Protein backbone atom coordinates (compact mmCIF):
# COMPACT_ATOMS: atom_id res chain seq x y z
CA UNK A 1 0.00 0.00 0.00
CA UNK A 2 0.94 3.61 -0.24
CA UNK A 3 2.79 5.06 2.72
CA UNK A 4 2.12 8.54 4.06
CA UNK A 5 5.13 10.54 5.17
CA UNK A 6 5.36 12.68 8.26
CA UNK A 7 5.08 16.31 7.13
CA UNK A 8 5.56 18.13 10.40
CA UNK A 9 7.32 21.48 10.25
CA UNK A 10 10.84 20.89 11.56
CA UNK A 11 13.16 23.19 13.46
CA UNK A 12 16.77 22.09 13.59
CA UNK A 13 19.06 23.81 16.10
CA UNK A 14 22.52 23.32 17.53
CA UNK A 15 22.87 22.27 21.14
CA UNK A 16 23.23 25.36 23.32
CA UNK A 17 21.39 27.68 20.93
CA UNK A 18 18.01 29.20 21.70
CA UNK A 19 14.93 27.77 19.95
CA UNK A 20 11.77 29.59 18.98
CA UNK A 21 8.70 27.60 17.99
CA UNK A 22 5.75 29.47 16.57
CA UNK A 23 2.05 28.77 16.50
CA UNK A 24 -0.94 30.54 14.99
CA UNK A 25 -4.18 29.91 16.84
CA UNK A 26 -7.65 30.07 15.41
CA UNK A 27 -10.13 31.58 17.83
CA UNK A 28 -9.89 35.18 19.04
CA UNK A 29 -12.15 34.22 21.96
CA UNK A 30 -9.69 31.63 23.30
CA UNK A 31 -8.65 32.56 26.80
CA UNK A 32 -6.06 29.94 27.72
CA UNK A 33 -3.12 28.50 25.84
CA UNK A 34 -0.76 25.63 26.58
CA UNK A 35 2.44 24.27 25.11
CA UNK A 36 2.95 20.52 25.24
CA UNK A 37 6.03 18.43 24.46
CA UNK A 38 5.58 14.96 23.04
CA UNK A 39 8.40 12.45 22.81
CA UNK A 40 8.13 9.43 20.58
CA UNK A 41 5.74 6.82 21.96
CA UNK A 42 4.60 8.95 24.88
CA UNK A 43 1.65 11.16 25.72
CA UNK A 44 1.99 14.96 25.62
CA UNK A 45 3.74 16.52 28.58
CA UNK A 46 2.78 19.97 29.88
CA UNK A 47 5.48 22.61 29.47
CA UNK A 48 3.95 26.00 30.18
CA UNK A 49 0.64 27.82 29.92
CA UNK A 50 -0.55 31.39 29.60
CA UNK A 51 -3.90 33.11 30.01
CA UNK A 52 -5.20 35.71 27.61
CA UNK A 53 -4.77 38.56 30.09
CA UNK A 54 -0.99 38.11 29.87
CA UNK A 55 1.44 38.55 26.99
CA UNK A 56 4.48 36.80 28.47
CA UNK A 57 5.18 34.07 30.97
CA UNK A 58 8.47 32.52 31.96
CA UNK A 59 9.35 29.11 33.31
CA UNK A 60 12.58 27.24 33.73
CA UNK A 61 14.45 27.74 30.42
CA UNK A 62 11.14 28.37 28.62
CA UNK A 63 9.19 31.51 27.81
CA UNK A 64 5.79 31.77 26.15
CA UNK A 65 4.78 34.91 24.30
CA UNK A 66 1.20 35.69 23.34
CA UNK A 67 0.22 38.24 20.69
CA UNK A 68 -3.55 38.45 20.66
CA UNK A 69 -3.59 41.07 17.91
CA UNK A 70 -2.33 38.59 15.34
CA UNK A 71 -3.40 35.40 17.19
CA UNK A 72 0.17 34.21 17.55
CA UNK A 73 1.86 32.18 20.24
CA UNK A 74 5.53 31.34 20.54
CA UNK A 75 7.64 29.10 22.76
CA UNK A 76 11.23 30.06 23.41
CA UNK A 77 13.63 27.46 24.79
CA UNK A 78 16.93 28.77 26.12
CA UNK A 79 20.16 26.80 25.77
CA UNK A 80 18.51 23.94 23.91
CA UNK A 81 19.63 20.47 24.94
CA UNK A 82 19.43 17.09 23.15
CA UNK A 83 16.71 16.09 25.62
CA UNK A 84 14.54 18.87 24.22
CA UNK A 85 14.22 16.98 20.92
CA UNK A 86 10.51 16.20 20.53
CA UNK A 87 7.33 17.37 18.84
CA UNK A 88 5.91 20.55 20.37
CA UNK A 89 2.20 21.35 20.22
CA UNK A 90 0.37 24.53 21.08
CA UNK A 91 -3.21 24.18 22.24
CA UNK A 92 -5.98 26.68 22.82
CA UNK A 93 -9.00 26.55 25.05
CA UNK A 94 -12.05 28.31 23.70
CA UNK A 95 -13.24 29.13 27.19
CA UNK A 96 -16.80 28.93 28.45
CA UNK A 97 -18.26 25.77 29.92
CA UNK A 98 -16.12 23.32 28.02
CA UNK A 99 -12.48 22.64 28.77
CA UNK A 100 -11.56 20.89 25.55
CA UNK A 101 -8.29 21.81 23.93
CA UNK A 102 -7.83 22.46 20.23
CA UNK A 103 -4.33 21.42 19.20
CA UNK A 104 -2.10 22.68 16.43
CA UNK A 105 -0.36 20.22 14.11
CA UNK A 106 2.95 20.38 15.93
CA UNK A 107 6.58 21.26 15.23
CA UNK A 108 9.41 18.76 15.38
CA UNK A 109 12.42 20.17 17.22
CA UNK A 110 15.67 18.41 16.31
CA UNK A 111 18.68 19.31 18.44
CA UNK A 112 22.06 18.64 16.86
CA UNK A 113 24.88 17.83 19.28
Amino acid sequence: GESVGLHLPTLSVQEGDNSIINCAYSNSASDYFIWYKQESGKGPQFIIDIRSNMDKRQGQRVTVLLNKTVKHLSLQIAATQPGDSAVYFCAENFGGATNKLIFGTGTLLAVQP
Partner: protein
Amino acid sequence: GAGVSQSPSNKVTEKGKDVELRCDPISGHTALYWYRQSLGQGLEFLIYFQGNSAPDKSGLPSDRFSAERTGGSVSTLTIQRTQQEDSAVYLCASSLDVVGREQFFGPGTRLTVL
Protein backbone atom coordinates in the same frame (compact mmCIF):
# COMPACT_ATOMS: atom_id res chain seq x y z
CA GLY B 1 0.48 5.14 40.20
CA ALA B 2 0.52 8.90 40.24
CA GLY B 3 -0.24 9.49 36.56
CA VAL B 4 -2.98 8.76 34.07
CA SER B 5 -2.89 5.14 32.96
CA GLN B 6 -4.38 3.58 29.86
CA SER B 7 -4.90 0.02 28.75
CA PRO B 8 -4.10 -1.75 26.58
CA SER B 9 -1.01 0.02 25.32
CA ASN B 10 -1.45 -1.60 21.91
CA LYS B 11 -4.51 -3.13 20.28
CA VAL B 12 -4.67 -4.84 16.92
CA THR B 13 -8.12 -5.76 15.67
CA GLU B 14 -9.87 -6.79 12.50
CA LYS B 15 -12.15 -4.50 10.58
CA GLY B 16 -15.72 -4.80 11.85
CA LYS B 17 -14.84 -5.85 15.39
CA ASP B 18 -15.66 -3.79 18.49
CA VAL B 19 -12.91 -2.51 20.80
CA GLU B 20 -12.84 -1.05 24.30
CA LEU B 21 -10.12 1.27 25.52
CA ARG B 22 -9.71 2.04 29.20
CA CYS B 23 -8.50 5.12 31.05
CA ASP B 24 -7.71 5.49 34.75
CA PRO B 25 -7.40 9.21 35.58
CA ILE B 26 -5.35 10.73 38.34
CA SER B 27 -7.12 10.22 41.66
CA GLY B 28 -9.22 13.25 42.57
CA HIS B 29 -9.38 14.66 39.04
CA THR B 30 -12.97 15.46 38.18
CA ALA B 31 -12.48 16.17 34.49
CA LEU B 32 -11.55 13.49 31.94
CA TYR B 33 -10.90 13.87 28.20
CA TRP B 34 -10.39 11.59 25.24
CA TYR B 35 -8.36 12.67 22.21
CA ARG B 36 -7.27 10.88 19.05
CA GLN B 37 -3.92 11.33 17.33
CA SER B 38 -3.41 10.06 13.82
CA LEU B 39 0.09 9.54 12.41
CA GLY B 40 1.93 12.85 12.15
CA GLN B 41 -1.09 14.84 13.27
CA GLY B 42 -2.06 16.91 16.24
CA LEU B 43 -4.56 15.75 18.80
CA GLU B 44 -8.25 15.71 17.90
CA PHE B 45 -10.74 16.21 20.73
CA LEU B 46 -13.32 13.42 21.10
CA ILE B 47 -15.24 13.73 24.36
CA TYR B 48 -15.05 15.45 27.75
CA PHE B 49 -16.51 14.46 31.14
CA GLN B 50 -16.77 16.92 34.00
CA GLY B 51 -18.16 15.74 37.32
CA ASN B 52 -21.82 14.81 37.10
CA SER B 53 -22.54 17.09 34.14
CA ALA B 54 -23.61 15.74 30.78
CA PRO B 55 -20.48 14.96 28.72
CA ASP B 56 -19.40 17.11 25.80
CA LYS B 57 -19.57 14.61 22.92
CA SER B 58 -19.09 17.16 20.18
CA GLY B 59 -15.83 15.62 18.94
CA LEU B 60 -17.01 12.04 18.42
CA PRO B 61 -16.58 11.35 14.68
CA SER B 62 -19.51 8.97 14.27
CA ASP B 63 -22.16 7.07 16.21
CA ARG B 64 -19.81 4.08 16.26
CA PHE B 65 -17.89 5.90 18.98
CA SER B 66 -19.15 6.11 22.55
CA ALA B 67 -17.66 6.62 25.98
CA GLU B 68 -18.75 6.30 29.55
CA ARG B 69 -17.31 7.19 32.88
CA THR B 70 -18.36 5.07 35.82
CA GLY B 71 -18.36 6.38 39.36
CA GLY B 72 -16.67 9.58 38.31
CA SER B 73 -13.37 7.78 37.81
CA VAL B 74 -12.51 5.14 35.20
CA SER B 75 -13.60 5.76 31.62
CA THR B 76 -14.08 3.40 28.69
CA LEU B 77 -14.04 4.47 25.05
CA THR B 78 -15.85 1.99 22.81
CA ILE B 79 -15.53 1.84 19.04
CA GLN B 80 -18.05 -0.41 17.33
CA ARG B 81 -17.57 -2.00 13.92
CA THR B 82 -14.05 -0.64 13.62
CA GLN B 83 -12.82 0.72 10.29
CA GLN B 84 -9.26 1.12 9.04
CA GLU B 85 -9.52 4.90 9.38
CA ASP B 86 -10.02 4.40 13.13
CA SER B 87 -6.36 3.40 13.40
CA ALA B 88 -4.68 6.00 15.61
CA VAL B 89 -3.33 6.59 19.09
CA TYR B 90 -6.13 7.27 21.55
CA LEU B 91 -5.06 9.52 24.40
CA CYS B 92 -6.80 10.14 27.69
CA ALA B 93 -6.19 13.14 29.94
CA SER B 94 -7.51 14.33 33.27
CA SER B 95 -7.52 17.58 35.19
CA LEU B 96 -8.57 18.75 38.62
CA ASP B 97 -11.57 20.74 37.44
CA VAL B 98 -12.49 23.35 34.91
CA VAL B 99 -10.59 26.05 36.78
CA GLY B 100 -7.41 23.94 37.02
CA ARG B 101 -7.12 23.51 33.32
CA GLU B 102 -3.77 21.79 33.05
CA GLN B 103 -4.51 18.43 31.48
CA PHE B 104 -2.30 15.48 32.32
CA PHE B 105 -2.05 12.89 29.57
CA GLY B 106 -1.69 9.16 29.70
CA PRO B 107 0.67 7.22 27.39
CA GLY B 108 -2.10 6.38 24.94
CA THR B 109 -3.45 3.24 23.32
CA ARG B 110 -2.22 2.53 19.79
CA LEU B 111 -5.11 1.02 17.83
CA THR B 112 -4.45 -0.73 14.55
CA VAL B 113 -7.39 -1.93 12.48
CA LEU B 114 -6.44 -4.47 9.83
